[in-house]
């Protein structure tokens, strides 16, 4: 065990944890903004209730996204000092842009939104939540552009004297093919996740309604007015998932082609394709032998991989053995094959779990077509509730595929992961840090889930009571700490 291994574990643990909250923040900020816009336009009370209810859940989640994001800003320097030294000139720029253009926007306007219900005119207050939503999406763009640069470095040259990468075209970094495609794919997945969050919450409440009926007791089942609200919100969630699903699938297809072009080793590993083939098949289930570098068992669909990677059924796809040989010749001796088992199965789990969520949305909309209709089958509610963890896991496996598939590089073709780690930081220090983060994050996870659970159970009328007469302005909420 070396400091390098633990530094990688720490990056994995803290980043995956951070990314449980990020997609929800990205998607829910928009969904809350949409709900509040409905309220602003129609003045209908249930939209205010829905805005408040999902707004509260959004804020509980937002807090965690922010604090776990701070760690990311420091971690590169702490554990990956040689990486930072090498790439800062290029990689630091989008990070600084993210702070200047996105973080300030999000943080200032979230404060104004939380505390501004009574102090700001309604239109201005509505603009605040939209600015938060725009901020979160801008933030995603900059950080994904930085990540895309690691996989497809562009717009830079190596300074021979200092050995550092130096930016020479910021536009190339920001318009990197990998950046745009990754952005649509990741943000699409974020909207799927947030949409399924809304769907799962609504499904839970409506399912309790079916199971217990209206007992009139808060927290047991939704009241009559809440039933309409949850039905409406569920529809909003389902539509968001379906639209985002289309974007995610299309950009995912594009990602495969970009991988074939820029990261052929990742694609080959994701398919456990050992030898270069024309008309390569898509593997559905493989058992591989990484020592002998072949698959004793491989259940495949002919020609599909070639089509995904090149757009032609008989296109050529490079295999790992041939790439390894070419890389050794070009970069010198070493093992350039990532962990095939992890990459192969992450790819399948990402697709499978993601597709499950989109399928639930399609079925849900079909079952709910027409006025006032609700799905009667219990299995639908179970599936809708299961779709949320499925989407969160799909996000995680997507990142594992991206990051583990890039190994052994941090910057493709330029810097190895083993060369990136901080040489001055010893094993005990990283172990301490990993242990502390794991413990703190673990405790916070329990707290966060507990709070979400509590507010979901209480429901929207607990936050914003039903109207007693039609013109009750005092129903406006007052958030405070």
């Amino acid at each position: 065990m070396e400091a390098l291994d633990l530094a990688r574990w720490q990056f994995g643990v803290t980043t995956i944890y951070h990314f449980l909250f990020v997609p929800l923040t990205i998607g829910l900020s928009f969904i809350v903004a949409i709900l509040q816009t409905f309220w602003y336009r129609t003045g209908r009370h249930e939209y205010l209730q829905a805005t408040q209810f999902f707004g509260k859940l959004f804020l509980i989640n937002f807090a965690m996204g922010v604090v776990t994001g701070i760690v990311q800003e420091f971690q590169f320097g702490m554990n990956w000092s040689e990486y930072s030294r090498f790439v800062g000139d290029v990689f630091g720029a989008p990070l600084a842009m993210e702070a200047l253009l996105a973080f300030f926007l999000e943080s200032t306007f979230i404060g104004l939104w939380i505390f501004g219900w009574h102090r700001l005119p309604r239109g201005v207050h509505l603009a605040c939540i939209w600015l938060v939503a725009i901020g979160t999406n801008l933030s995603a763009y900059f950080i994904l552009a930085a990540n895309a640069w690691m996989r497809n470095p562009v717009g830079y040259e190596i300074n021979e004297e200092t050995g550092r990468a130096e930016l020479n075209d910021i536009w190339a970094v920001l318009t990197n093919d990998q950046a745009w495609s990754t952005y649509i794919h990741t943000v699409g997945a974020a909207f799927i996740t947030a949409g399924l969050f809304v769907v799962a919450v609504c499904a839970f409440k409506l399912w309790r309604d079916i199971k217990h009926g209206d007992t009139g007791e808060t927290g047991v089942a939704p009241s009559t007015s809440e039933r309409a609200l949850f039905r409406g919100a569920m529809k909003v969630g389902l539509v968001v998932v379906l639209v985002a699903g289309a974007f995610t699938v299309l950009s995912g297809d594009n990602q495969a082609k970009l991988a074939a072009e820029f990261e052929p080793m990742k694609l080959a590993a994701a398919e456990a394709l050992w030898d270069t083939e024309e008309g390569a098949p898509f593997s559905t289930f493989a058992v591989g032998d990484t020592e002998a570098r072949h698959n004793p068992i491989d259940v495949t669909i002919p020609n599909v991989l070639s089509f995904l990677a090149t757009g032609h059924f008989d296109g050529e796809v490079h295999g790992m053995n041939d790439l390894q040989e070419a890389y050794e010749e070009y970069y010198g001796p070493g093992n350039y094959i990532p962990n095939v088992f992890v990459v192969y199965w992450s790819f399948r789990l990402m697709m499978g779990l993601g597709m499950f969520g989109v399928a639930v949305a399609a079925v849900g909309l079909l079952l709910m077509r027409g006025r006032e209709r609700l799905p009667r089958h219990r299995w639908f509610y179970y599936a809708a509730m299961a779709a949320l963890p499925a989407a969160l896991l799909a996000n995680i496996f997507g990142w594992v595929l991206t990051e583990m598939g890039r190994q052994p590089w941090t910057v493709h073709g330029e810097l190895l992961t083993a060369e990136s780690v901080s040489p001055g930081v010893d094993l005990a220090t990283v172990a301490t840090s990993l242990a502390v983060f794991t413990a703190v994050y673990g405790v916070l996870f329990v707290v966060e889930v507990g709070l979400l659970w509590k507010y979901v159970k209480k429901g929207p009328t607990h936050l914003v009571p039903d109207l007693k007469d039609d013109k009750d302005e005092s129903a406006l909420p007052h958030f405070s700490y």
Partner: protein
Amino acid sequence: MDLALIWFVAIAVLWTGYFFLEGFDFGVGVLLPFTGRRNSIERRVAINSIGPVWSANEVWLLTAVGATFAAFPPWYASMLSGFYLPVLAILIALIARGVAFKYRSSHDSDRWRDVWDRAIFLGSVVPSFLWGVLFANLVQGVAMDADHIVTAGPLDLFSPYALLGGLTTLALFTLHGAVFLALKTDGPVRVRSRKAALGSAVVALPASAAFLGWTQSAHGQGWTAVTAVAAVAALVLGVLLTWQGREGWSFTAMAVAVLTLTVTVFGALYPNVLPSTTDPAYSLTIENAASADYTLTVMTWLTLVALPVILGYQAWSYWVFRKRVTGEQITGATVDGGAEPEPEKVA
């Protein structure tokens, strides 16, 4: 003036903004146990005085660190890997207090609030102290080899000078927070904050004077003598104004004190960004740590466009919440931050 120097100044400005803004947030957190009893309205008044703004204040830190990464990558790399454990402690503290602000009122129970209040207190004390320690180490330099890898152990970072630096920022931020609370609240919290300000001044004044004197004599430039004296003078003035109950002016004086102190520290650091005590030739300087001109040019244009806008809307958010926070406003809301008819009339 060359671009590298401009960015050294820009980073100094970002840290100054951070210490000025989050300085009083930290102070409010440090003073939380003294503003009111457990689970009291007074504590909520104190927290709500920074409620809408603390998160945006913290972005100044993220921007300072992000700008250091982009403009001086080796500085970012050596500093954060070299100061690993204190930085870890700061991160955990910032996580704890950030979550605590949001979650403490989400569940109505005394024990629940107690836990989060402790998180706010410790989460404010730890970074207030450690930022001073780390900046003192930047000025003083650390053991660092020819590859700019810090070889000093965690305990080496706690020299007498660094400890004095930590005490200075802790006491100064506490005083700053007390003055802020006196300005932004009304009722018992306002009264107690004035007392707390005078109490913390007993430590903040001598500590700051000693730290600035030491910094100036050991590492200062000619001109930093002026800012060091100005910092002490502003502090004395701030305390006197607090004593007279002139809260707006005393807060202004505190702002000047934090500004001049930060400027003195960066002046003492110049032209290094991280000096090596192993061999001065191994030091990281503005010159050898700066990114290439292209990156610095891009960043400069971006900042020139973005910063005025940011300052504009951040100032506006303070304007929106300019009223003093009182217990009456708080009791208008339900305990768990939900909705209940609120008496306040909107102007």
